[in-house]
């Protein structure tokens, strides 16, 4: 056998199989894991931004309320903020439930 033929045979020994369902499945699983990890990270960052924003707004609102002479105004504003927060939370919850059941 010529050296060239031996070289070709030796190279052919390292060939990957033409079809390999397990490899394809492993790639898809890995892609799914990565997508989940990215989604979780994105969700955590969004949650942290929203929480810190809400905390900052609450501090500002409390400071503003302390400076108000009439309690009727502060009570009204706090009620409106609480109502908006409740509606926002309900919508967020409904969207998440909808996404999971879809």
């Amino acid at each position: 056998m010529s050296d060239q033929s031996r070289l070709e045979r030796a190279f052919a020994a390292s060939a990957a199989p033409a079809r390999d369902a397990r490899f394809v499945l492993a790639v898809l699983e890995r892609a799914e894991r990565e997508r989940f990890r990215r989604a979780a990270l994105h969700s955590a960052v969004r949650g942290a931004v929203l929480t810190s924003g809400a905390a900052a707004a609450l501090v500002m609102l409390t400071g503003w309320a302390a400076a108000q002479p009439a309690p009727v105004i502060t009570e009204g504003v706090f009620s409106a903020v609480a109502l908006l927060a409740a509606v926002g939370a309900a919508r967020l919850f409904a969207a998440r439930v909808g996404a999971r059941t879809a």
Partner: protein
Amino acid sequence: MTSNDETRLIAAARRGETRAFASLVERHQQAVRGFLRRFSGDWSEADDHAQEAFVTAWRRLDRFEGKSSFRTWVCGIAYRIARDARRARGRSAARETDWAESQASMATAPAHEDRISLAAAMAELPEQQRAVVALCLGEGFSHSEAASILNLPLGTVKSHVTRGREKLLEALGDGDE
């Protein structure tokens, strides 16, 4: 598979269709894994990098412009992943030769001995030359495809193929003695 089929599969995979992407992986896994196996010498590491290359390709599919074939594009991604991993690990050529030598102790049949001699000789080649040889001699890529994958001038690829083949043939010849 025609290039139209491939274009359709790529468009579907871009839209997030898992089945289309799975078809692309199925059709090109042999070339990518074969190239990486010959480039790294370690099959399980090569398969791991090949998986990573396909996942990266799916994530970056929007950047695929179609200037080269999908196979060429993915092999380019795979090459950079494997190369960067090797550099990060700082694996020396000596360690690669150690791996090949450990396999040599198990050699029995002449064909097996050739495979071991080839693995040892591949490990001795410079990084770019090994990649060119793995692509052109191992997987049958054209010189221009290899140039595109490795981002090298065509002339450099041709000279790497010629010199690489000479070194490998020499190594196989030495193995007879």
